[in-house]
């Protein structure tokens, strides 16, 4: 039974409905896979009792013949989602001991659909990072290794635990969140699929906020079909999030015909960047050929403000973070520093936040504070928001010219070694998001699909960017790319 955790959502759904297995059996297989994978440090709070209860309830529902696709499917939940009565600390010391009294909208939607939570997944602290190295729980580890090399690699970030858990078959799928690439980059680093939907598709209610105008939840799965199934279960209109869209959620899976004849795919010239490895350029070119062979029309396009996206992001995201993270003051929840005699409330704030936030979070909160401070607000924050308007305009223009989707590499490299970037300055780490961050700034849906292996045997992904609210069409294009790429490689188990 140990192979059950290797199933896809679609495969498990069909087997559950046919009565070939039960959710309880499937869940037990995942729980034992998780217990055998502590070396990956992916699951940081295990919830076996909740999992067993929900699996039994799902089996009853399946037996009654009224079960949605996610019913009985064991999944992991990123630590950024508040889960009632279960530790939810955004991988930060400042939320140590925090037990939400409520359930996030996205995880509640998954509960309602019958999904089975196995536990909470590792991540970068407050989703700020690209390597899962800023977590209070320690690094999550990529199940993939370079050929003939035992060095531990990053699963990417910030949804590093989610990526590692899905790639290692500890669960069938996981939730992620993506503010600048935090679903798509780790998906690419671990050979799995990850989609960030259009801003507003998933309610942000109950998801611990990083940068509210950029944050979106999305699924991380073993293939495109599973991404379609799980995304459908995560999306909803929610009056508690005023930016949540009041649009019907389509049947994403039904859109997967694989027929992309007549579609127009744009190749942006600005994504040919200096210093990008030749094999990533080559993979991108192969992806273009695959889509052309599938009947799509390939056109060269220009997104002229691409170059400025990262700089705009590193003003806007820290600015919003400095405001969002102001709530961690040692008063209402989480950590409070031990105070000396004579310490007042200001010392309480300052000591609590110095102890509770890690170095990267402190850095971003302070950068955000600076760009919002009197005298710099216009020069930095307002200028970045103007550039953001131009970046979105670039995409609006190419969509108006008839482009259905944009094809780019997902990341500028394969997974790198844990600790390898330690001596680099913070900006070097930020460059990981160079291909993904534009999508958040423009509020668009983007998906990372595994498409090949590099010379060291590590997975590489391609990214497709779609029109707003047209995730169904985007998933279908991704499905055609997945079919043509035929990526089936799995990491060799060492953990």
């Amino acid at each position, binding site marked *: 039974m140990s192979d059950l955790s290797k199933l896809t959502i679609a495969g498990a759904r069909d087997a559950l409905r046919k009565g070939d297995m039960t959710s309880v059996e499937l869940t037990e297989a995942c729980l034992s896979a998780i217990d055998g994978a502590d070396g990956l440090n992916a699951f940081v709070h295990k919830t076996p009792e909740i999992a067993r209860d929900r699996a039994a309830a799902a089996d009853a529902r399946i037996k009654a013949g009224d079960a949605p696709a996610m019913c009985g499917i064991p999944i992991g939940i990123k630590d950024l989602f508040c889960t009632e009565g279960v530790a939810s600390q955004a991988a930060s010391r400042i939320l140590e*001991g925090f037990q939400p009294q409520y359930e996030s909208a996205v995880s509640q939607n998954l509960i309602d659909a019958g999904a089975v939570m196995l536990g909470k997944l590792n991540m970068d602290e407050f989703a700020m990072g690209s390597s899962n190295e800023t977590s209070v729980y320690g690094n999550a580890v990529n199940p993939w290794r370079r050929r003939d090399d035992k060095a531990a690699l990053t699963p990417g970030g910030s949804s590093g635990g989610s990526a590692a858990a899905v790639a290692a078959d500890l669960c069938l799928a996981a939730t992620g969140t993506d503010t600048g690439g935090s679903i798509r980059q780790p998906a690419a680093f671990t050979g799995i699929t990850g989609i960030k939907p*259009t801003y*507003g598709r998933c309610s942000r209610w109950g998801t611990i906020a990083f940068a509210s105008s950029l944050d979106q939840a999305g699924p991380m799965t073993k293939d495109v079909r599973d991404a379609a199934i799980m995304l459908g279960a995560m999306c909803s209109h929610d*009056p508690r999030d005023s930016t949540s869209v009041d649009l019907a959620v389509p049947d994403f899976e039904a859109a997967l015909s694989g027929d992309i004849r007549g579609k127009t795919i744009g190749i942006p010239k600005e994504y040919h960047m200096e210093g990008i490895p030749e094999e990533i350029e080559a993979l991108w070119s192969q992806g273009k050929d695959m889509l052309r062979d599938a009947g799509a029309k390939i056109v060269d396009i220009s997104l002229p403000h691409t170059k400025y996206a990262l700089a705009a992001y590193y003003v806007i995201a820290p600015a919003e973070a400095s405001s969002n993270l102001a709530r961690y003051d040692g008063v209402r*929840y989480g950590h409070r520093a031990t105070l000396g005699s004579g310490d007042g409330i200001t010392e309480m704030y300052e000591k609590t936040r110095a102890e509770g936030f890690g170095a990267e979070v402190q850095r971003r909160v*302070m950068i955000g504070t600076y760009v919002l401070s009197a005298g710099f607000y216009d020069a930095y924050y307002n*200028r*970045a928001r103007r550039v953001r308007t131009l970046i979105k305009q670039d995409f609006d223009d190419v969509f108006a010219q008839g482009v259905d989707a944009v094809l780019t590499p997902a990341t500028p490299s394969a997974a790198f070694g844990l600790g390898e970037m330690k001596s680099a300055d*913070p900006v070097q780490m930020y460059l990981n998001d160079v291909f993904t961050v534009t999508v958040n700034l423009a509020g668009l849906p983007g998906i990372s699909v595994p498409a090949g292996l590099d010379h060291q045997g590590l997975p590489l992904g391609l990214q497709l960017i779609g029109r707003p609210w047209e995730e169904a069409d985007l998933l279908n294009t991704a499905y055609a790319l997945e079919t043509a790429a035929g990526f089936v490689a799995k990491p060799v188990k060492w953990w």
Partner: protein
Amino acid sequence: MSIDEGTAARVAKLARIKVEPADLPVLAQEFNTILGFIDQLSEVDVEGVEPMTSVTPMRLKRREDVVTDGSQQDKVLANAPDAREGFFAVPKVVE
């Protein structure tokens, strides 16, 4: 624009994060690296461009101005580091 230690200290104070004086030079250096990177935004011609306020062309939903929530003091206080007699407790604020 170069950030000196005094500015770094002022930013830390505004952010309510205690930074030891010995750590200020490194912090100021990191700020300079990041702000140096951000400074490329000054190359962009943004004349007449509106700052983005909403990424989706969507009017924010409004709801009835009525009370929809409340009466859960226990839940609100459940995670407080120090709650007493139904209140959050903090060090003395007013002398």
